[in-house]
C-alpha cells in the first residue's frame, strides 16, 4: 500500500480512503468501462465499473488466459478438479464447464473429473447433516455430466505410505512442446470426423457418477469405527493451528492419491487471490518462508507424477462472490473446524481477520501481498533426494546452516527427561516410537505442527509406516 501511494510514499495513514467517502444519496449508475453502453452492475478492482455481460467476459477470459499463459495443461490431459463446495472451487467448476462447451477453436481441451471430500466428521456435522450435504453435492455433480468421486476424510486413514513419496514424472509424449502438442491434437480432431462437434473430449452423459470408479455410493457414510478413529486423531491435537494444518494435509493427500490411482496428472484447486494472500502471511508465520512459492504458486510439482495447479489465484474474493450471485453458481458450504471457547484462534484465523480488516481501509493490501508473493521463486523448494525431503509436506528440508538457537523451538524434550522431572505421568508405551525420532525427518514448520499433534499412536497409519521405513 505504501508503494501504491506513489508520491505520498510516507508510512502514515495520511492518504485517507477518500474515494470511498461518497456522500449519501450521491450514488448514480455509472457506465461500464469496457463497452461504454451498459449500466454498471458492480465495481471491481479499485474503481472499475463493469456491466453484467462485460464482467462475465472478463471473468471467463481471465480463466482461459491463466491456463494459456502457463501452458501446463496439455490437450487431452486428464485433470481432477478439487471441489470443496465453497464459492471459489464452485466458480472454477463453472469455468471449466463453460470453457468446454464453447464450439470455437478456443475450447478448453482437457478431460475433467471432479472430486469432493466430505469432511463433516471433523467439522462437527451430524450424520444427518453429512448425508444431506452429500446428497446436495451429488445432485450438483450429476448435473455437470463429468465423472466424479465422492470421498470421505476418513479414507485418509487408509492411504498407503507411498503417498508420502513423489511419483515418477512421466509424460505420455516425452519431448513434445506445448505448441506441438496442441497442433497435434487439432490435427487428430480433424481426422476423427468433421461433423462431430464434440469430438475428442467426449464427455459422458449425465449421471456418470454411477459409472465412475468412485468408491462409495453417496448415501453411504464410512464405518463408524473409522470415523471414531479420525475424531480421536483430531481431538488429540493440541492447537487449532495444528488442526488446520493436519486437515489440509490429509485432504490433499487423499485427493492426490485419487488422482494417482485413477491416472490424473493434474489436480486443480480453487484458491482465490484473497486466499493466496492470506496463505502467504499464514505460512510466513508458520515458518514456511522457504516454500511460499510452491505453496501458493500456479503450479506445485512436489509430488512428481501429479501436479497441483491453482487457476483461480488471480480472482479476488469479491469478483467470485458477484459472479456466483449473478450467474447462479451453486455452492454447498461446510461449517469451519469447531473450536472450544477456551481455545486460542488458529494462525490461519488471525491472519484472515487481520487482512480482511486491513483491506477494508486500504483496498490494495491483498493485491500488494499477492504481487510480493509473485516475486518469490520456488527453486530449491523441491527436495533432491529422500534424506533431504520432509516426511509430511515433501519439500526440501530448510534447516541446514541454522544456528542452534534458531532450531530450539523445533526440538522435543526427550520423554525420558520429562519422566525424571516428574512432569510426565504416563511413560511412553513399550515398543512405540518416540515422537522425537520423527523430528529429523521434518522441515521447520512441520516440526512445529508435529509437536502439537497428539501421541504417536493417534497418527494416521500411513505416516507412521513411512516414518518407520525412513528411520530404520
Amino acid at each position: 500500500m505504501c508503494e501504491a501511494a506513489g508520491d505520498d510514499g510516507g508510512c502514515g495513514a495520511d492518504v485517507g480512503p477518500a474515494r470511498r467517502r461518497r456522500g449519501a444519496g450521491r450514488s448514480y449508475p455509472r457506465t461500464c468501462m469496457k463497452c461504454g453502453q451498459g449500466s454498471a452492475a458492480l465495481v471491481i478492482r479499485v474503481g472499475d465499473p463493469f456491466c453484467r455481460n462485460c464482467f462475465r467476459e472478463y471473468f471467463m477470459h481471465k480463466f482461459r488466459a491463466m491456463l494459456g499463459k502457463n501452458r501446463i495443461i496439455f490437450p487431452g490431459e486428464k485433470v481432477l478438479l478439487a471441489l470443496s463446495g465453497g464459492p471459489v472451487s464452485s466458480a472454477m467448476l463453472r469455468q471449466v464447464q463453460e470453457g468446454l462447451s464453447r464450439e470455437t477453436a478456443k475450447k478448453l481441451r482437457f478431460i475433467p473429473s471432479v472430486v469432493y471430500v466430505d469432511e463433516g466428521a471433523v467439522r462437527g456435522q451430524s450424520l444427518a447433516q453429512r448425508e444431506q450435504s452429500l446428497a446436495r453435492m451429488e445432485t450438483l455433480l450429476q448435473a455437470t455430466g463429468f465423472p466424479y468421486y465422492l470421498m470421505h476424510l476418513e479414507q485418509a486413514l487408509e492411504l498407503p505410505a507411498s503417498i508420502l513419496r513423489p511419483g515418477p514424472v512421466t509424460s505420455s509424449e516425452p519431448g513434445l512442446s506445448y505448441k506441438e502438442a496442441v497442433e497435434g491434437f487439432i490435427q487428430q480432431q480433424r481426422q476423427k470426423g468433421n461433423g462431430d462437434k464434440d469430438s475428442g473430449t467426449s464427455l459422458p452423459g449425465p449421471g456418470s457418477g454411477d459409472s465412475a470408479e468412485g468408491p462409495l455410493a453417496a448415501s453411504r457414510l464410512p464405518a463408524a469405527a473409522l470415523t471414531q478413529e479420525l475424531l480421536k486423531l483430531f481431538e488429540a491435537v493440541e492447537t487449532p493451528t495444528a488442526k488446520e494444518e493436519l486437515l489440509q494435509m490429509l485432504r490433499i493427500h487423499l485427493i492426490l492419491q485419487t488422482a494417482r490411482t485413477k491416472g490424473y496428472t493434474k489436480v486443480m484447486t480453487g484458491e482465490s487471490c484473497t486466499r493466496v494472500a492470506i496463505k502467504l502471511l499464514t505460512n510466513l508465520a508458520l515458518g514456511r518462508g522457504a516454500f511460499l512459492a510452491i505453496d501458493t504458486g500456479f503450479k506445485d510439482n512436489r509430488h512428481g507424477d501429479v501436479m497441483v495447479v491453482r487457476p483461480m489465484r488471480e480472482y479476488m474474493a469479491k469478483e467470485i462472490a458477484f459472479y456466483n450471485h449473478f450467474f447462479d453458481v451453486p455452492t454447498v458450504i461446510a461449517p469451519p473446524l469447531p473450536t472450544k471457547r477456551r481455545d486460542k484462534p488458529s494462525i490461519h484465523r488471525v491472519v484472515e481477520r487481520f487482512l480482511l480488516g486491513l483491506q477494508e481501509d486500504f483496498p490494495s493490501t491483498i493485491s500488494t501481498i499477492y504481487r510480493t508473493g509473485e516475486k518469490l521463486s520456488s527453486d530449491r523448494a523441491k527436495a533432491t533426494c529422500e534424506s533431504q525431503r520432509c516426511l509430511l509436506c515433501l519439500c526440501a528440508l530448510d534447516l541446514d546452516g541454522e544456528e542452534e538457537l534458531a532450531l530450539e523451538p523445533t526440538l522435543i524434550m526427550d520423554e525420558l527427561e520429562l519422566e525424571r522431572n516428574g512432569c510426565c505421568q504416563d511413560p511412553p508405551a513399550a515398543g512405540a516410537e518416540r515422537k522425537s525420532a520423527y523430528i529429523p525427518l521434518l522441515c521447520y514448520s512441520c516440526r512445529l505442527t508435529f509437536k502439537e499433534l497428539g501421541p504417536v499412536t493417534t497418527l494416521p497409519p500411513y505416516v507412521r509406516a513411512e516414518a518407520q521405513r525412513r528411520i530404520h
Partner: protein
Amino acid sequence: MPPPRCLHCSRPPALLRPRCGSPLCRGCFVRRFEAEALRSLAPGSRPPAPGPGATVAVAASGGKDSTVLSHLLQRFAPRLGWRLALVSVDEGIAGYREAALAAVRRGRGSPPLLVLSHRELFGWSVDELGPALGPGSRCTFCGVMRRQALERAARLLAADWIATGHNADDIAETVLMNFLRGDVARLRRTATEATGGTGDPTGTSRAVPRCKPLRHAYEKEIVLYAYFQGLEYVSTECVYAPQAFRGHARALLKELEAARAPAVAALGHSSRRLRVGAEGGGRVLGACRRCGFAASRELCKACVLLAALERGRPKVGLGKRALEG
C-alpha cells in the same frame, strides 16, 4: 497433573518460555538467557560476530532492548576480548528522547558514551520536520538519519562493529511489514544478510558491520530479564508511533504470538529462508557522492532526503524516483 517445575532445578517456575514452552525458575532463566546471548556471539556463528580484539559500538537508546544489551555486553566484553563504547542518538523528539538519554547516562557503567544529535549532524531534528512534511509520517526521515548517525559515531570511535538491540519481535515485525508493503528488495536483503552474505564481493564494505546479539530473544523475555536484574530503562512510546505503518505489523504480531507463541521465532526463520527471485537484482554498496557513506545509488538516502528538505519538497525525497542531488 502436578504443577510444573523448573526444567533444571525443580523449583517452582517463574515463567514458561514462549519459544519452546519450557518452565524455568528465576535463577535458571537468567542464567539461560545470558548463556544464549553469549552463544549467539560465539565464533563461527551465523551471521558472523565480532572476534576478540574488536571495538564494538553499542547503540544505546535508553529503552529496554539496548539497556539489556549494554548490560550483557559489559559483562561479556572481558571474556570476548572486546573494547566497548556506547552510542546514543538524539533524534530531537520532545518528550521521548530526553528521559531515555538521561537513563543511558545514569546506567552507562564504564565504557565511553558518545551522544550525537540529528540537529548537529544534519541540521534538522525530527520535530522540526513537522512544518515541512505536513501530516505525513516521519519514520523514514528519523530512521534513515539515525542509521547514518550510528554509522558516523562508529567511525568517530574507530569501531569495527555496531551492536544493536533488535529482538526476535522486531525481526518478525520487519518481515511482516516488508511483505505488507511489497518491499521485495528489503526482503531479499534480510535473507542474504542472515546467512552472513553481505553481497559485497570486493570485501571493501563501506558500512560498519552490524550484529544483533538479542535476535533470538523474545521481547517478553527481555522485559523479564531487565526486571529480574533491576535494570533501569525508559519505555515511553515515540510520539509519532501511532502514525507509523509498523503499527499494523505489530498488532498482527501480537495476535499471532497470542495464538501460537513459537510464531515469532517461525517468522524469523521464514525471513531468513525467503527465496526472492533474481530480477531487480541487488546492488553492490558503493559510496555516496556527497558524503562518502554507504549508498546503493549515487547518493545515499540520507543525502536524498536532506536535499529534498532543503529544496522545500520533502515528499519528493520519499518517492521512488527521488531527486538525484
